[in-house]
């Protein structure tokens, strides 16, 4: 079970007259096992939304709820995948994945089973004893995703997780994430500035305005995806060729272009 709610959330950075309003009256409900992507221009506060759910930032006004309870501090029920991976360089792949389980005081046997299945899930079995700096960016992000999945979190928070990867690796990771999300759906809040990625991955896409960020529009992708049977195509490029996909993508592009701060990437 894992739902996320933003209720009239404002975020101001700094104090008094020097304060900058980053978020303005954010309202968004993410249902259990729903995959929602937030897209928006650079600096619109989309990452701040995720950081408030993670418990890294507090809302200046309004409330951020997970399963109906206000978020107070970070915790393993809300696993985060960071853009820059944030793996512990002095820990091996196994040790990185295992840390959260050790913090939960699980017995060794159970930990080993869970780590083994997470390694298998992300195709990391042959790199168990490698250190992060010995792995490519794509492999490092697999470790970070495995580290998050192994916790069996109520919600999964992904902050531009593929933003630091090269184009080919990104496509592979997107396809794998779709595979994971469709076979074992869980609540995901996914931040990205890549429109196609958002449409391809998410059940719904929320579009934000430039700063101070507001939710401008929320699109139901899942309804179109199921109606047009996107999942019958294994490859991302085939999905992206579909007329229904192009239509949604163009709609979001136009919406973002109206925001002055938006730059084509």
């Amino acid at each position: 079970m894992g739902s996320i709610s933003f209720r009239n959330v404002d975020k101001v950075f700094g104090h008094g007259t020097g304060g900058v309003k980053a978020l303005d009256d954010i309202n968004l409900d993410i249902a259990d096992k729903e995959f929602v992507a937030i897209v928006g221009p650079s600096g619109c506060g989309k990452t701040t939304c995720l950081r408030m759910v993670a418990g890294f930032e507090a809302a200046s006004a309004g409330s951020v709820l997970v399963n109906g309870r206000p978020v107070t501090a970070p915790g393993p029920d809300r696993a985060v995948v960071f853009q820059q991976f944030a793996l512990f360089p002095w820990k091996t792949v196994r040790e990185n994945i295992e840390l959260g389980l050790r913090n939960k005081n699980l017995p060794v046997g159970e930990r080993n089973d869970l780590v083994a299945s997470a390694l298998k899930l992300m195709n990391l079995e042959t790199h168990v004893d490698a250190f992060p700096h010995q792995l490519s960016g794509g492999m490092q992000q697999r470790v970070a995703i495995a580290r998050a999945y192994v916790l069996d979190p109520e919600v999964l928070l992904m902050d531009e997780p593929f933003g630091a990867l090269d184009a080919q690796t990104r496509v592979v990771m997107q396809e794998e994430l779709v595979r994971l999300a469709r076979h074992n759906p869980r609540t995901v809040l996914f931040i990205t500035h890549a429109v196609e990625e958002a449409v391809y991955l998410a059940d719904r896409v929320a579009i934000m305005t430039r700063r101070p960020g507001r939710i401008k529009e929320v699109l139901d992708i899942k309804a179109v995806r199921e109606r047009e049977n996107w999942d019958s195509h294994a490859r991302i490029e085939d999905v992206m060729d579909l007329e229904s996909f192009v239509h949604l993508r163009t709609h979001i592009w136009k919406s973002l272009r109206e925001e002055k701060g938006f730059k084509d990437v």
Partner: protein
Amino acid sequence: MTSPPLGFRETVLLGLAGLVSFIGLWSFLSVSGIVPAQFLPGPLDVASRFVHLLTAPFAGATLPAHLASSFQRYAYGVLLAAAIGVPLGLLMGFFRLLDDIVTPIFDGLRFIAPIAWVPFAALWFGTGVGGPIMIIFAGAFPPCLINAYRGARFVEPRLIEAARMLGTPSSRMILEVLLPAAVPSIIAGLRVSAGLGWQSLVGAELIVAAAGVGFMMVQAQGSVQTPTVMAGMIAIGLVGMLIDVLLRQGEGWLRRRRGLDS
């Protein structure tokens, strides 16, 4: 603007040239009589005294024996500084409250030269084992603390966030996140501490009444045996260099192992 780097051969040759000129100037000053021999003993006198002291006792022990007793004292002082400075620095890097309490006191104390502690070190800890160790400690402690503190305080914030998101308790955060993240900084601090501790040695041994290179030099000074004083200085310089080279090697090995250099 820096010049292009020189090859290994050139570097060695330049170093040798510097050393030879230095000894040449020294010889000239003492042999020519410009500086009286009892003020500046010549390099040959010092070298032969150095060799002599390797086997012949002076002030109760040979030079190696004096060095050994100095080194033991020094090791205690530096290890004590590391044993207190590193954990305290890490804790200050993690707990803001402790940082706010300790930093103002420490910032004042650290500018007091180790030798200034001599009277109180003798008074509080005696002239046997404790006093000299405290002076070496006073020299070695600040870099241990400062570097552990900086290492812990300026860990990449994402790593702290990742650890908190994984539910990591404070004790484990310190031992498994802050400590390893601070290791390069701590090692650099230990290297500086080792140097400063060794520099504090002579001051520490001013109040020692048994053995040690500093003690030997003080005794020699009393009987105006300047070659012996200078042999002691050279011994201190050489051992200091050796300590630094070994610690640099250790630091490089650690960095390579962590993939920081490649």
